[in-house]
């Protein structure tokens, strides 16, 4: 019979063993393999390993276009998501609003749809000649807009679809945060003569700070990984106008078959996300408050 303590320790290792096997085979191992592959330049010359793929990447204009696109997407998404989901949550939390549960379910429903369904819907609606949106604009006297084929506008269309899909999700986070604020705080403030605006800036926002940081982190890191919506709407087009780094990686690795280059792109993306994540964490004091 094993001693009690030994039995507990062996059991705990056994409990986490399957997880580590899965993560080892599907994440840790492939990560190392990807690092190795990204450094493999045997395809081009005699040297087996070197930084050749990364040099190629540095000189690739298409990469820089996709890099710019990704940064653009991230900035737009973080900003819009914060504005939209916070506003929706404030509205749904207000005492004035009726049918709260109904509206909440409504605003949340796009989250349940797959990217394919959402993109297919918007492909039809945003169509230049036959789309419903341009039809309404025409009825109001505004001329049709080329939502998906104009390289200056297509990125906004992608962001709009993404916000339509996900604003309801982060709205729930804010709702939870708003409902956790004790109403006594507002009562006390009102007794002291605070108006609505002061209540918002001095009570609501500071207490929502952890959730604001969480939402910014989620959107920041999540939008760098953007793939589904632009792929399904325009395949990254027109040209490379709507192509984020994710699609660039997919095209190079799986359409052109250049696995090593794809890994180099992946490593670069990883680096970008890590740097941005750490920067954002430092700026917002995430690391000060985090307790494992």
């Amino acid at each position, binding site marked *: 019979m094993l001693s009690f303590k030994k039995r507990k320790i062996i059991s705990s290792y056994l409990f986490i063993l399957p997880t580590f096997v899965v993560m080892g085979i599907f994440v840790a191992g492939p990560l190392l393999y990807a690092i190795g592959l990204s450094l493999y330049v045997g395809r081009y010359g005699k040297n087996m390993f070197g930084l050749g793929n990364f040099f190629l990447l540095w000189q690739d204009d298409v990469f820089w276009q996709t890099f710019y696109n990704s940064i653009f997407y991230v900035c737009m998404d973080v900003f819009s998501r914060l504005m939209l989901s916070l506003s929706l949550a404030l509205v749904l939390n207000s005492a004035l609003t009726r049918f709260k549960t109904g509206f909440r379910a409504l605003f949340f429903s796009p989250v349940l749809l797959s990217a394919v369904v959402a993109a297919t819907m918007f492909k039809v609606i945003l169509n230049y000649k036959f789309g*419903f949106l341009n039809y309404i604009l025409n009825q109001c006297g505004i001329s049709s807009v080329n939502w998906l084929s104009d390289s200056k506008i297509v990125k906004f269309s992608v962001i709009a679809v993404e916000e339509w899909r996900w604003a309801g999700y982060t709205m729930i986070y804010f709702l939870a945060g708003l409902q956790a604020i004790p109403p006594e705080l507002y009562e006390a403030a009102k007794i002291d003569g605070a108006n609505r605006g002061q209540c918002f800036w001095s009570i609501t926002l500071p207490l929502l700070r952890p959730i604001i940081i969480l939402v910014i982190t989620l959107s920041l890191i999540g939008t760098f990984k953007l793939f589904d919506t632009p792929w399904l709407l325009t395949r990254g087009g027109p040209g490379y106008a709507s192509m984020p780094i*994710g699609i660039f990686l997919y095209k190079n690795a799986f359409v052109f078959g250049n696995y090593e280059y794809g890994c180099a792109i992946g*490593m670069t993306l990883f680096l970008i996300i890590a740097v941005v994540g750490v920067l954002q964490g430092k700026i917002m004091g995430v690391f000060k408050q985090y307790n494992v």
Partner: protein
Amino acid sequence: MFKNTQKNKLILLSLYHVPIIIIAMVVIAPILWFVIGSLKPGYETFSLPPNLSPKSFIYTNYPEVFQRIPLQRYFLNSTVVMVVYVFLALFLSSLGGFAFAKYNFPLQNILFIFILSTMMVPIHVLLVPLYLLMDKIHWLDTLYPLMIPFDRLPMGIFFMRQFIFFIPLELIDAARIDGCSEFKIYYRIILPICKPALAALGIFLGVFSWNAFLWPLVILNSESNYTLPIGIANFVYVTEQLPEWGLIFAGCVLSALPPVIIFVFLQRYFVKGILLGSIKG
């Protein structure tokens, strides 16, 4: 004056709701559009002004889409993948969460940080090596890689650990005194208590798995193995120039039904789940 104030209040309240209703319409308009679009013949999809009278609705798109693409096959594939994925994820998350929450063992903190840090790795980095690995073990173009929850397991363990942390140690010790093996403690005590957390996590992962796109896109090749999102995306790609959007919309509506149905019946657990996860930070 009294009547006026009452009426005024009502008018103001209605005015206040107008922007909300407009936003609600913006959110629901695309969904309504394609549900209605699925009930129209293909040549009417793009006709403007849109003909919304129920008299012009047809229902033949739904049976016909099953003949054009192997939609039942896609449903079957997606369901199998989702069930196995959620089961594995819940099982491993709860086991792992239990171990990290209620046990003390050497290297515990380092191992936990290791698991958390894998969350930082974007899946794009792993696409190529995983593709090559799956090829080597002949799992390419099968459903097996889609069933492994490697992308959400760290989050699941983190979530379950938070939840299990608050289970009183006395319960576990009492079971030990009664002679329970460690696994029995997990099975008989921890699991039943975790039901709400498991339900919330399960719904979240189920919807996520049902709608997953990039990973199946990389792994699957033959049409008979496609999951729903890939199958429909393929159908759209092949037929979008033809006036057959009614069929496409019918396929979309059908594929969107299961998550909606699951959610409608279980939404209390889902919202509870997000609250559980986020407030305790």
